[in-house]
């Protein structure tokens, strides 16, 4: 809770001030660059710190009979405004040892003047100054809240420089550089705010009296070089010396403007006439300006410039983080007490929520009553049968912000019926506490009386979609609930929406409810058989996936028409020449294997679709054995048979078997496998691959049969082949 207050203030302050802070940061970078550049070439003499005025002034008098003023700037460059022996006006940087001209005094370029004005006041004079002042103050608060957030994230100052969990680039960069540039940005914001307050007269400017000194009226005339004050005043203390306007006039003084005071000196006898100490606030203002601009030190100017540049990136990455955190909106169709499947999410930056939501959406699309909530919203779920926990781990192995209350809530709300649970942990193996919180939850849930572990804990490293789909497959196979298993579906970067034109479509009939549709991508598009086509029948977020067969560069889908089918009825009403939009989701785990000795393809119903394309892609003529199961013998199965015999003749297919379940001699695809058991088990043993596509129930049955066969014939469990990726599946 406390974390979110700090985070909300950090975010809202950032949002409010972002435009102005962005302007300040960009102009700040330019001005820092200028602060470095103005020091090159350097006009500072080496013995600058050793010189006093009684050494410098007489030497300069030799070269410049008439001097108006001498200035020492923040770079310790000495410039003079004077007339030389020829009566020519000179305004230049000089060597204070001998008056030699070192370079011309440059005024700032138009661009730098423009940038400075923008940086100070947005060209809006006082209004602009106030806006900038406030932005500067907000930046100060942002820095402070940022510091608190890092300390909270790292659980104390002790771990301040410990490793940062990397979720995605923007978040990582924001935190890492935040740590590094915290101090310079704090300095920039603090001094900027102070300078603004001085400008607006918000700082009490305590007046300082000019103190008249006792003067000896009869003092004798002495030479400038012998003035005691000149002897004790170092050039390094000087900011400016104003020379008497009229020579030999006792009422015209030397005015020495030093770092901390102003001294008036009689030009005849060298006596000090008056002293004015600068107030403390004036010195603080000068110091603020030095630290704000880095004008006194190249190193500081560079650090401030980098910090400024980083503010630009802070703003950008801050927006990316906010976008990612808020992008996935939780939307529920069913109430908590209606849902059979409850998905609980622990997510810090929204990545985990994204995965969870992808599952949630598919479950809803499949007509399941799925409910998604944050772990901290845990409650009683009277109708729940399945509990899915998706969680990341925050900081050093602890709960993400939206999950830190879960353990208490779990004690508070025991469920009344048995619920099967499955925990998926998200994290990065780069950190020692990999998925620590997920593991903790899995153990905790296991201890509850009302729970039953449906699948052992599954962890996903660095948002690896392939690792995630392994879990999806397991869960889908065991629960017989269809979920997309193509990694692309869970990618945050979804492929672009493309247009497809309907080239041909077959019709359904009384004895055949399955149709074939051929789509041509309007623009060039790369895909392979086994990839998925996502379509959007209502042009909203609801998507439906179909397995692709690539036929002569076109997409061939085999679809079973359900009268109430959202996707199938949409596809069926399309006419030749119509176009539709969709995305091709790559599914590299279910492509035609390239370097295997033999392939067994097992399909039922529309599951044959990708295999039809793969056989066409089999240019290397790998022996393929296709086993299929259908309900009825009809036009479509006849067309498969025609296709198969043609492909067998071309050498791209080795054998083809069909089982009909609703005809005479009812048979299932499992029966075909049993019949060819020796052949199939040998193919597996020799490194061949089995591919299964079709219904999840069929997959379960087929795997059972295969398990029995491999165990009895070779005493090898099927899981071994699964691990070796010799058993590929794409079922629904």
């Amino acid at each position, binding site marked *: 809770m406390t974390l979110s207050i700090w985070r909300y203030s950090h975010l809202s302050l950032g949002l409010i001030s972002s435009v102005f802070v962005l302007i300040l940061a960009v102009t700040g970078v330019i001005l820092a660059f200028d602060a470095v550049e103005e020091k090159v070439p350097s006009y500072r003499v080496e013995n600058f710190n050793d010189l006093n005025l009684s050494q410098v002034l007489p030497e300069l008098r030799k070269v410049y009979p008439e001097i108006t003023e001498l200035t020492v700037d923040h770079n310790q460059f000495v410039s003079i405004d004077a007339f030389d022996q020829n*009566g020519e006006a000179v305004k230049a940087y000089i060597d204070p040892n001998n008056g030699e001209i070192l370079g011309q005094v440059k005024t700032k370029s138009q661009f730098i003047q423009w940038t400075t004005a923008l940086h100070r006041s947005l060209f809006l004079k006082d209004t602009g100054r106030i806006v900038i002042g406030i932005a500067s103050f907000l930046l100060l608060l942002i820095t402070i809240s940022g510091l608190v957030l890092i300390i909270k994230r790292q659980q104390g100052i002790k771990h301040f420089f410990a490793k940062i969990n990397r979720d995605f680039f923007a978040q990582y960069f924001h935190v890492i550089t935040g740590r590094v540039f915290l101090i310079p940005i704090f300095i920039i914001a603090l001094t900027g705010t102070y300078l603004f307050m001085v400008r607006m007269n918000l700082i009490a400017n305590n007046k300082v009296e000019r103190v008249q000194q006792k003067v000896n009226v009869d003092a004798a005339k002495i030479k400038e070089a012998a003035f005691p004050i000149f002897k004790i005043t170092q050039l390094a203390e000087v900011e400016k010396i*104003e020379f008497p*306007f009229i020579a030999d006039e006792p009422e015209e003084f030397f005015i020495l403007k030093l770092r901390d005071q102003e001294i008036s000196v009689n030009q005849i006898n060298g006596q000090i006439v008056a002293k004015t100490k600068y107030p403390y606030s004036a010195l603080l203002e000068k110091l603020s300006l030095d630290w704000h601009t880095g004008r006194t030190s190249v190193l500081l100017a560079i650090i401030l410039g980098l910090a400024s540049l980083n503010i630009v990136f802070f703003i950008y990455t801050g927006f990316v983080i906010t976008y990612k955190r808020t992008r996935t909106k939780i939307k529920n169709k069913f109430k908590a007490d209606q849902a059979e499947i409850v998905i609980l999410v622990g997510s810090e930056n929204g990545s985990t929520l994204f995965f969870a939501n992808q599952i949630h959406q598919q479950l809803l699309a499949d007509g399941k009553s799925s409910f998604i909530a944050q772990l901290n919203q845990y409650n009683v779920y009277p109708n729940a049968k399945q509990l899915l926990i998706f969680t990341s781990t925050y900081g050093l192995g602890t709960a993400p912000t939206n999950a830190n209350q879960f353990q208490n809530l779990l004690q508070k709300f025991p469920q009344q019926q048995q619920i099967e649970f499955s925990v998926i942990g998200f994290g990065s193996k780069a950190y020692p506490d990999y998925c620590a919180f997920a593991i903790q939850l899995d153990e905790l849930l296991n201890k509850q009386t009302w729970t039953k572990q449906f699948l052992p804990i599954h962890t996903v490293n660095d948002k690896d979609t392939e690792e995630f789909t392994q879990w999806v497959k397991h869960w889908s196979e065991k629960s017989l609930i269809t979920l997309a298993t193509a990694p692309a579906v869970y990618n945050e970067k979804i492929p672009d929406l493309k247009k497809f034109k309907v080239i041909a479509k077959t019709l359904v009939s009384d004895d055949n409810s399955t149709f074939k549709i051929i789509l041509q991508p309007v623009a060039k598009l790369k895909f392979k058989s086994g990839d998925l086509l996502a379509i959007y029948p209502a042009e909203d977020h609801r998507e439906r996936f179909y397995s692709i067969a690539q036929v002569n560069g076109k997409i061939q889908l085999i679809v079973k028409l359900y009268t109430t089918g959202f996707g199938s009825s949409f596809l069926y009403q399309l006419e030749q020449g119509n176009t539709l939009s969709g995305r091709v989701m790559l599914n590299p785990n279910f492509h035609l294997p390239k370097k295997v000795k033999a392939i067994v393809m097992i399909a039922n119903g529309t599951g044959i679709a990708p295999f039809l394309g793969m056989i066409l892609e089999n240019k290397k003529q790998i022996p393929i054995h296709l086993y299929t199961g259908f309900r009825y013998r009809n036009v479509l199965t006849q067309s498969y048979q025609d296709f198969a015999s043609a492909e067998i003749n071309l050498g791209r297919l080795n054998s083809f078997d069909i089982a009909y379940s609703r005809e005479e001699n009812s048979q299932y695809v499992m029966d075909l496998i049993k019949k060819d058991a020796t052949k199939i088990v040998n193919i597996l043993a020799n490194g061949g691959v089995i591919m299964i596509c079709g219904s999840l129930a069929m997959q379960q049955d087929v795997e059972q049969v295969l398990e029995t066969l491999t165990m009895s014939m070779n005493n090898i469990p099927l899981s071994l082949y699964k691990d070796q990726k010799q058993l590929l599946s794409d079922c629904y």
Partner: protein
Amino acid sequence: MKLNIKFIILLFVVLGFSKADVYAQTSKYKCLIQMVSYEGEAAYVVVSLVNKAGAYEKTLAVLGPDKQWYNTLKDWYKYQTKAKEKLSAVTGASIGGGDRAIKILEIDNAKMNKGYTLRFETAVEEQKYHITDVEIPLTTVGITEMAKGKGYIKMVKLNKVQ
């Protein structure tokens, strides 16, 4: 063709000006401006040559670097937006309360004793504008006499540079 005519006119104008410069006899004056001790931002000061009729003819010095404040010197700004003089050579820093500035003014000898004046106008941001803070007659005697200011300027004194 149109372009050519423009170009030729421009050429003549440029030649004309440079010719005038070559033959013009000017004198340099060291000019001290002493400010009164007021509170607030540094003042912007403009020194201009004003003819008998009271119209601006030339800007001799601008003390104040930031163009966004030039419009606070209203009368001069009105003239300047039309005349569009190049000011970079005569522009310098603004002067704070109680401070002094010394500028070199270059004045055309031909303008002496013909009813011209030097006008010093001042403005401080968010404060007042003084159109004729100081006015100095361009006469052989008058030009080097000390002149007291009415606004932010305490006094002005010119000395001829030998």
